[in-house]
């Protein structure tokens, strides 16, 4: 990277910035070869985001812990299936985590349980606000979410953090399906540019 190019450094990939994405890829490659020490290091880096995103979606702490354990074990089991060409290790792991949380919502029993527990969900931007601490990630994501239009921001947070399908988001926000699809996509394009994802 050219240190004189302030734009380039400012727009460095969000994931590259994140405590060394390359290191994480390397760790995962070692994990794939059965290296438990590498897995411990990976755990220390990824357990927080994994548990955090699942917790955000499911809300229930004990269910979240259960799903997080399943996800981390799946990472261990399937590490050899990780393909760096398809995206970074952090993305691979968090994608599994988010999907498993969604799967859990969509399984019947969990759905009823969750309805009950999310009866008084605070609005999505409050969720984001409550997540804001000193963390750079949080700060940057918060800033970028703020740069969106309200409907883009709400669509994205309801879908990702709320674990709602875009049809449900359309229903919640009382907007047409076509509009929601577009808002989510436009919002993500803005987020991508704001976060400097390459």
């Amino acid at each position: 990277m050219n240190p004189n190019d302030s734009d380039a450094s400012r727009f460095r990939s969000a994931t590259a910035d994140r405590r060394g994405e390359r290191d994480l890829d390397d760790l995962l490659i070692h994990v794939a070869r059965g290296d438990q020490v590498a897995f411990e290091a990976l755990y220390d880096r990824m357990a927080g985001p994994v548990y955090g995103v699942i917790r955000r979606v499911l809300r229930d702490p004990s269910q979240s812990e259960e799903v997080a354990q399943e996800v981390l074990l799946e990472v261990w089991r399937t590490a050899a299936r990780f393909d760096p060409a398809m995206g970074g290790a952090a993305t691979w792991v968090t994608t599994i985590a988010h999907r498993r949380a969604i799967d859990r919502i969509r399984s019947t029993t969990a759905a009823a349980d969750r309805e009950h527990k999310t009866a008084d969900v605070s609005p999505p931007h409050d969720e984001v606000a409550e997540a804001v601490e000193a963390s750079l990630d949080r700060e940057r994501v918060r800033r970028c979410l703020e740069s969106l239009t309200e409907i883009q921001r709400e669509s994205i947070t309801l879908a990702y953090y709320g674990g709602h399908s875009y049809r449900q988001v359309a229903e919640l926000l009382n907007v047409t399906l076509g509009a929601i699809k577009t808002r989510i996509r436009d919002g993500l394009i803005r987020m991508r540019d704001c976060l400097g994802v390459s």
Partner: protein
Amino acid sequence: MRFFRQDLHTLTGAYALDALEPGNELTRFNRHLSRCQSCASEVRGFREVATAMAFAATTDPPTEMRDQVMAAVARTRQLPPEVRTHVRPRRTRSAAPWIPWLSGAIATAGIVLAVLFGFAQAHTQNELNQARAQNQALAAAQARVEAALNQAREHDQALAEILGAPHVTLLSQRTSKGGVAVVVLDAAKRQLVVATSGLPALPAGKVYQLWLIGPVKIVSAGLLPTAQAGVTTPVVATGIVKGDKLGLTVEPAGGSKQPTTVPILALPLPV
């Protein structure tokens, strides 16, 4: 419902946030994704945004979780590398794009996918449980299902609909003549997909016929296709009524109006 390409393309965002419900739309989008390079790269970028959002949600897990995960890791065998990749452009017509989603949904629901499509036959129950724990079953079953589905394109729509339904039930049972029948039941829509593996080969002039055996009447659910490498391609059956069992009999070629032999399978269908 039909979608224009334009509509499909705008789904990249919802897809990257896992906000597409399983079903036709997800099926179509997955298919589209496998041949649309720009969509795939857009999805990759959006997934990075999602990753940043996951990191922004970082929460310390309970401290005891670390020891539990490490203990589980120490006794869990890893999977070998996979030969295929997630996007398979060269197989756009024959691939079954819903499979990754299906497997995720089912695996997490904790359903025994291990018995799917004949993977069961060579294993004892214990081995199966172990295999499932290692997720190998999933990979094997996926490969089997995918292979089977290549033969069943004409049913694609119906299959995708059932397999993508939010609350499917997986049932399986050995037949009295050996082999196993596996059923994915969509109770809400009263329809199912059935495939078998390891049934004994029949002499010429005989076929396997499926039945919905109800308390009042018995209805044919079609003939089982000829097995390929021991596995029959999935068959869709609709119009299940309460109390129905899925039956299987040996019938003369062309099938019968009512069963003429004793069923070798009678699997209750909870609808």
